[in-house]
């Protein structure tokens, strides 16, 4: 699609000189004549490889190393073996924050997946208007900070329009972000608002791969939209849905921004998600070793989820033909 839209490359102005060499001063290597591009590849790959090694590979290894040390940034890291992990296992705040994180992820992913699926199906079956698709994506353009602040205002206990409507309908005002029961679901829903359009578009991409004649044939047989959804859409979308789920679950485990601007972990640690606890341990108490150990725990959890979901996806492949 994209290839067809650009001009035919053969007509591009290329230098006509035979065997023009673009890298000055390079010896013609025998490597080259046999189809190898070793030197050129080394030049082309160098910046990305440096970035990869310095800011991804090395930090990963170092993060694991730091989790076995006591480290406060000021003095050199001191090897303490499994002390950080031992502390973590006996730290009730850690377990609480893990619980809060899981609660957040379950609500966030549950609501987001169902809503995104509904939006995607509406976009496919009702109207394929690109304008509507664009509108649905707009919250994604906001930062988590902006989204958090806007909803903090809308849901404000006294002046927020959300609570004004609730009060107008004759119900009690809800202290959405100031109440221990409401805070986590509220934050989860704020992030659903920001991300659901993006997820819906990913699912829409999957829906577009389903041939339209399947729906037309079903329609001739008198199938209802509801029946078509369960008999055609759901089975054929399953692999795409699984991949999107893996991505969004991993993304939502990393919640931090919204918590930081709305509740700051409160009330009474009710929204103290693991990320926030890690951040506080590192930058509030300068316990980089302990914070690293918790990061490793998070990494292990995420890897396990990825592997598990990947397996489930594969298992689902058979009945899709």
């Amino acid at each position, binding site marked *: 699609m994209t290839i067809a839209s650009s001009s035919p490359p053969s007509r591009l102005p290329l230098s006509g000189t035979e065997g*023009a060499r673009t890298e000055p001063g390079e010896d013609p290597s025998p490597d080259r004549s046999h189809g190898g591009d070793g030197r050129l590849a080394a030049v082309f790959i160098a910046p990305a490889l440096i970035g990869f090694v310095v800011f991804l590979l090395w930090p990963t290894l170092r993060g694991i190393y730091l989790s076995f040390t006591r480290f406060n940034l000021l003095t050199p890291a001191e090897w303490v073996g499994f002390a950080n992990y031992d502390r973590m296992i006996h730290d009730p705040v850690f377990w609480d924050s893990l619980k809060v994180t899981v609660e957040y992820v379950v609500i966030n992913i549950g609501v987001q997946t169902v809503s995104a699926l509904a939006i995607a199906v509406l976009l496919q079956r*009702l109207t394929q208007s690109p304008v509507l698709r664009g509108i649905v994506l707009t919250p994604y353009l906001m930062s988590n900070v902006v989204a958090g602040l806007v909803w903090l205002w809308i849901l404000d206990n006294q002046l927020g329009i959300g609570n004004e409507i609730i009060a107008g309908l004759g119900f009690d005002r809800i202290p959405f972000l100031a109440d221990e029961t409401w805070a986590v679901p509220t934050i989860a829903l704020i992030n659903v608002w920001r991300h659901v359009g993006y997820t819906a578009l990913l699912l829409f991409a999957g829906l577009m791969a389903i041939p339209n004649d399947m729906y037309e044939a079903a329609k001739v047989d008198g199938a209802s939209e509801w029946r078509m959804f369960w008999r055609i859409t759901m089975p054929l979308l399953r692999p795409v849905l699984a991949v999107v789920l893996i991505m969004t679950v991993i993304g939502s485990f990393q919640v931090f921004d919204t918590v930081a601007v709305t509740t700051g972990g409160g009330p009474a640690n009710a929204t103290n998600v693991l990320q926030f606890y890690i951040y506080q341990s590192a930058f509030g108490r300068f316990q980089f070793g302990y914070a690293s150990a918790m990061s490793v725990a998070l990494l292990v959890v995420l890897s396990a989820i990825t592997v598990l979901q990947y397996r489930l996806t594969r298992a689902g492949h058979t009945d899709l033909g």
Partner: protein
Amino acid sequence: MAAVTTTTTTTRIRPTRRRALSPGRVLAWTAMGAIVLVTLLPFYWILRTALSTNSGLAAHASDPLPVDPTGTGFARALGLESTKDAIAQGGAGGGLKFWRYLLNSVIVSTLVTGCQIFFSAMAAYAFARLRWRGRDRVFALFLAGLMVPTIFTLLPNFVLIKELGLIDNLLGIALPTMFMTPFAVFFLRQFFMNVPREVEEAALLDGAGKVRIFFRVLLPMASAPVLTLAVLTYITSWNDYFWPLMVSYSDSSRVLTVALAIFRAQTPQSGVDWSGLMAATLIAALPMLVLFGFFARRIVSTISFTGIK
């Protein structure tokens, strides 16, 4: 769109579906309307609040229009109002160097997007089109990098940036994502792999070297995916909060997202400066809305048809 459907003879179902207004379709359209409303209403509410005065907001909380329409919220957000006036309006007394933060955000996002896409495209070309020893093994390593969640590398990267003496420096904010992301390399490699080999061979026959082929043939051909990737990278970088929060300590390197959160923290706990805060929020979000406005159609269709992450 309508013209297309009427001229084609193959669409038998569409016209009948259009006319039939079954209860199900009414319900579906109602749901669609509700979705659009929930999506867009907060944007209107930002604008309405930003144009109101704080005292007006307290008196008429549910008024759908701006209360006592005024621009002082924007003036405060932009730091154009005197400290005395700002405090009288319920704003923060501290100076808000808005333009500095805006510039910082622009510098970081431009640096990250420009370099990351360029270097990733070069690497993607090397992985897709050049033959060299160990290529597949190095690529597998990059792919494994996709699995490492960003959160995991943040703390060690902070330590590294500190050792490099780049704390509170814009370069320190940009560096970790400036060279590549595994995803960008992966995404562009997919594109280069799909370019027919004849294209390259034709250029080779014309006497072009591989470097020239990359810059003059393949990169221009990839302009559509590159542009989409660039806009999405720009948005992600602009909206990033966690990493800049870790690295920047003063106005010199503070980006808009961090400044916004601080602006919120600075306002008095008893009466938050909602008007000023929403004005600042709107100004912070505006550049991305404009950027999206320019490229919306292309981005939406790229995501819709390729499922780009």
